[in-house]
């Protein structure tokens, strides 16, 4: 009889998956509300503040809004235009949502739980769906590159000029920014010596130096690339409303559109998770969470709360940037990726590699404390030098001056030719 029951690890994994997906979906719904509040605050409006508990007059600051939004979009007609490629048109939103949810298999959403003998959990239980995966960072990378297919196929299957342009733009943008993203990430992997995200967090907690302080250049490169990968403003060219109507999801409506929008939000949440875990210390906060193994429930919950608060902070930053920056032009976007972020990422990688290589000699020469200070000071010097160099050598096109493709003589020449 007991043979038919799933084993304990399976049950634990299923519970984690359930909690994660439920939590993420709810969070995505409420983050939309937060984003609308943020938009209203920036534009000096009131924002959504009416919908509260249904069938009563209780407003509750508009906290019922996500429910109403969801009901509205689900009950809308799921219209499939005649001119689309039906198979791919249906598959695209499924691909993108499945990929962006599967990413979270390798992302820890807390530190770990203390042993629970009553349930048969003898050891610490990591808050991570796939704790055995040795290639966590690469898994995240692989699945976020699968998500490109959703955008590309959605754009192509729609058989619509705007959708197609959006798909093309996004594929070029996502492929280009994967390189600075990878370079920023390599520095962290090099310093932590592991591809596992929980090991990276533990490494920051045990030294107390978050990688944002130890690798400022890598942090900036990764942050910018993460914005671009999540296609958030100022990098939202795939669906620039003023130019492309809705970009790759122009032809979509109803539940399929909802899947696209949720996947987009999940990309932002993923980016926030990665930024916090890799550069902002994960669940670690000096003097609050400790850095050793989890012994009590208080510590476990405290670490979970710290991680969640940091992630919320980064998401709020994403939203604030959205209302503060104008969109890049496409050539500026590409110049920024290839001529600014790529060299800066390489400089960061070389700096980190050199420091890690010569750390033992440094410790032997000047002692533990001074070596630690130097290992933070040198990257900051490199950061300022690199930043100024990038600023002075800025390739034309990353600033906002109009492009002069033709000198006056060229134009005359072309006019004559025409």
């Amino acid at each position, binding site marked *: 009889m007991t043979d038919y029951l799933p084993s304990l690890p399976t049950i634990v994994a299923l519970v984690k998956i359930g909690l994660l997906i439920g939590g993420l979906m709810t969070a995505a719904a409420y983050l939309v509300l937060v984003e609308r509040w943020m938009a209203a605050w920036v534009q000096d409006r009131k924002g959504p503040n009416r919908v509260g508990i249904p069938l009563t007059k209780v407003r509750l600051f508009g906290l019922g809004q996500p429910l109403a939004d969801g009901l509205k979009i689900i009950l809308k007609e799921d219209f499939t235009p005649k001119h689309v490629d039906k198979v*791919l048109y249906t598959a695209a939103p499924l691909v993108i949502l499945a990929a962006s949810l599967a990413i979270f298999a390798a992302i820890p959403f807390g530190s770990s739980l203390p042993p629970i003998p009553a349930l048969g959990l003898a050891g610490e239980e990591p808050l991570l769906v796939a704790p*055995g*995966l*040795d*290639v966590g960072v*690469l*898994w995240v*990378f*692989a*699945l976020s*590159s*699968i998500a*490109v*297919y959703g955008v*590309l*196929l959605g754009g*192509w299957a729609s058989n619509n000029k705007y959708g*197609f342009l959006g*798909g*093309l733009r996004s*594929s*070029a943008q*996502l*492929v280009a920014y*994967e390189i600075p993203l990878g370079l920023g990430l390599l520095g962290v992997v090099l310093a932590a010596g592991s*591809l596992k995200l929980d090991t990276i967090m533990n490494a920051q907690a045990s030294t107390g130096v978050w990688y944002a302080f130890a690798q400022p250049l890598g942090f900036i490169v990764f942050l910018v690339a993460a914005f671009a990968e999540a296609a958030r403003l100022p990098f939202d060219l795939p669906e620039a409303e003023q130019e492309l109507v809705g970009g790759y999801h122009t032809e979509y409506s109803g539940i399929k559109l909802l899947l696209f929008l949720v996947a987009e939000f999940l990309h932002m949440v993923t980016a926030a998770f990665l930024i916090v875990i890799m550069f902002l210390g994960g669940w670690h906060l000096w003097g609050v969470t400790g850095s050793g193994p989890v012994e009590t429930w208080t510590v476990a919950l405290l670490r979970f709360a710290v991680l969640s608060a940091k992630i919320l902070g980064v998401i709020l930053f994403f939203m604030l940037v959205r209302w503060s920056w104008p969109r890049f032009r496409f*050539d500026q976007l*590409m*110049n920024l990726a290839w001529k600014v972020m790529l060299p800066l990422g390489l400089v960061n990688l070389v700096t980190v590699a050199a420091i890690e290589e010569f750390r033992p000699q440094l410790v032997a020469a000047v002692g533990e404390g001074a070596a630690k200070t130097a290992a933070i000071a040198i990257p900051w010097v490199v950061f300022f030098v690199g930043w100024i160099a990038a600023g002075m050598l800025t*390739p*034309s*096109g990353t600033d906002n001056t109009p*492009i002069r*493709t033709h000198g006056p003589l060229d134009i005359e020449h072309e006019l004559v030719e025409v």
Partner: protein
Amino acid sequence: MIAVALPSPGVLLAGAVTAAAVSLWLLLPRGRDSRPARWLGGLLGAAALAGFVLTGRRLGGLGEEAVFLIVSLVAVISGAATIVSRSPVYSAIWFALALAGVSGVLLVLGAQFLGVATIVVYAGAILVMFLFVLMLAQPAGLAPYDRVSNEPLLSAIAGATLLGLLTLSIGRLSADPSCCQMPSKAAAMAAGTAGTSVDAAHAGDAIDAAIATDPLAADQVARLGGELFGRHLLAVEAAGVLLLVALVGSIAVVSRHGDPSGELAPARRAAS
């Protein structure tokens, strides 16, 4: 129980190879399409696949793992669909699915890094570039000779024969008990802790082998990296230099053809 009713592995394999060849020949895109032929091809293909699976079972090369069977079937079927699709975009999508299947096989076999790297490099970068180009070239604009397969008969026969020979040789190899015996982790651990009579170095080797085959061993990537940058350092560096030379060469070729008033003007503008 199945073994009683079935013909010998050799006959089974010959049948599967024939069915695969005929089915590929029927399915490969040619100028005119007939629906019954494609249906027949699909049925024959399914029969051939079942034949190969049964042969593998009989030869002892195919285990019982359901996950392995599923991912490898996904890889094979989408691989076939890649070459028989009529639309280039669908071909690319099927190819992506085949890569996902291969990556699944690698993950089941315990090669985590290779499995994930397959997705990152092929599905994530190279195939997206393919799609990019295919979508720019609308299928309607393709010449007819781009949409049919050259020599469908010869290629079908060659492919099916290769498949049969590979099945035979791999099946023979894995049926041979002296070769490719992967020690189970428990056995290796038992050997390692058996006591003083066991040669310590041998036990260490057994544990190493167990780690190499365990999908969730802790230091997969570290071991692979040590191997690549230790024993195979020269090959890795040579491959890196080769890629760099190819990159520089392609840029040189493109820019030499660049005419100031030609198509390359935007690229030059961005560079200046």
